[in-house]
């Protein structure tokens, strides 16, 4: 079974890669493109560590075949910060609110939060908890993550007005 040559559009960059058709997007991002910000936890759709945005929607990259992402827009955690010196408001809020401990869940958590805020810019606490229901964190107890998302939502709203 031959490799398939595909074009991956990740964080605005284009990569041509030859991949085995059974490999997942998570594996190809990490092992071929060396974008190791995307984590693999459960490898079965439960934990959300592998969350990336595919055409703007949050998906589990451990259950997405890389070939299915051919020529579609992918955003990983590496693509969030606007410049090397500036963090995205969500990243900034996670740092400020102590929402990062070991950090393993953080990339997926932040991308899931980004998807949430794009669809619902002013979520209630309950909506944040539901929106992050596909992401597990074994360190923080979630409260600080919820606070960080609330803060980022305000920051983003203020940014839009200002």
């Amino acid at each position, binding site marked *: 079974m031959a490799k398939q040559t595909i074009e991956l559009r990740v964080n605005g960059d284009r990569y041509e890669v030859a991949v085995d058709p059974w490999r997942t997007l998570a594996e190809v991002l990490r092992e071929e493109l060396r974008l190791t910000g995307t984590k693999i936890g459960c490898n*079965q759709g439960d934990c959300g560590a592998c969350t990336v945005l595919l055409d703007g929607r949050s998906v589990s990259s451990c*259950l997405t*075949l890389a070939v299915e992402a051919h020529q579609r827009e992918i955003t990983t955690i590496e693509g969030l910060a606007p410049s090397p010196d500036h963090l995205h408001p969500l990243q900034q809020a996670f740092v400020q609110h102590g929402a990062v401990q070991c950090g393993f869940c953080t990339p997926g958590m932040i991308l899931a939060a980004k998807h949430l805020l794009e669809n619902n810019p002013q979520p209630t606490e309950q909506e944040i908890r539901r929106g992050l229901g596909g992401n597990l964190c074994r360190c923080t107890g979630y409260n600080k993550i919820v606070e960080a998302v609330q803060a980022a939502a305000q920051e983003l709203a203020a940014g839009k007005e200002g």
Partner: protein
Amino acid sequence: MAMPHFTVHQPKTLEQALDLLSRHRSGVKLLAGGTDLLMKMRQAGLKAEHLVSLNRVEGLRTISYRDEDGLVIGGAARLADVGRHPGVAQHYPALAHACSVMATPQIRNMGTVAGNLVNAAPSADTAAPLLAYGASLVAVERGGRRQIKLQDFFRGPGLSVLEPLEIVEAIRVPAPPARCGSAYERLSARSQVDIAAVGVAGLLNLDLEGRVLRCRLALGAVAPTPVRCLEAEQMLEGQAPDEALLMRAGASCVRSCQPIDDVRASAAFRRAMVQVLAQRVLKRCLALAQGGAS
């Protein structure tokens, strides 16, 4: 367990997809969101040498609602998109609820309604609401097209009457009549994320005098397939739906289920919850049918 090796085909039309299926006959599987299929391949040893992806087939993600035709859910329409479609939210609240609370946001962004039905898990969350709404599947094969009532679709855990070379092109759901209310309730351990331990969907349609013209009740996760509660439906049809009757009908749903003990819940707990959820669903359906929302 490692992923078995396969080739992926990405047809652009339904014709091409059907051709690919018949060309590779044995050892071919359709791939939609992959949230069931890839899990089974990686963890349960399911094998296929060829996967035919439906994700680039033109028009297959369409969702449309018209009063005359009802709802048409394309064979690759994803759960999240169905859940937030305005026509679904307005006319099919039980389905909208199922599609927006099941699994996780990520899985709902990937998984499809057709995949949920064809996978035929007893706990499939879209099955009970779609049974209550009287949905049918439109299945295409190279030779032609047939319509299968969802009620006749499931044969057992993981089994349906769909033939291996058939593709579900769409799911059709009739438009609900006037004075109609519907609802879905589910229970699971890890709030939404876990597979449902019990799911109950209902629909009540009242006549001009406020009597029950039609009732549909369906259960998920408490029998080898999603099931209708015919006894409860018959208790209600033709009757004035007072609270006592709703409570008795809800309680009778327990006789339509054959739950098992598993990691998610005991059979006894499932039975108790079927009654509670069925009663809750019926009350909500009645309130909606009488026009008093919430």
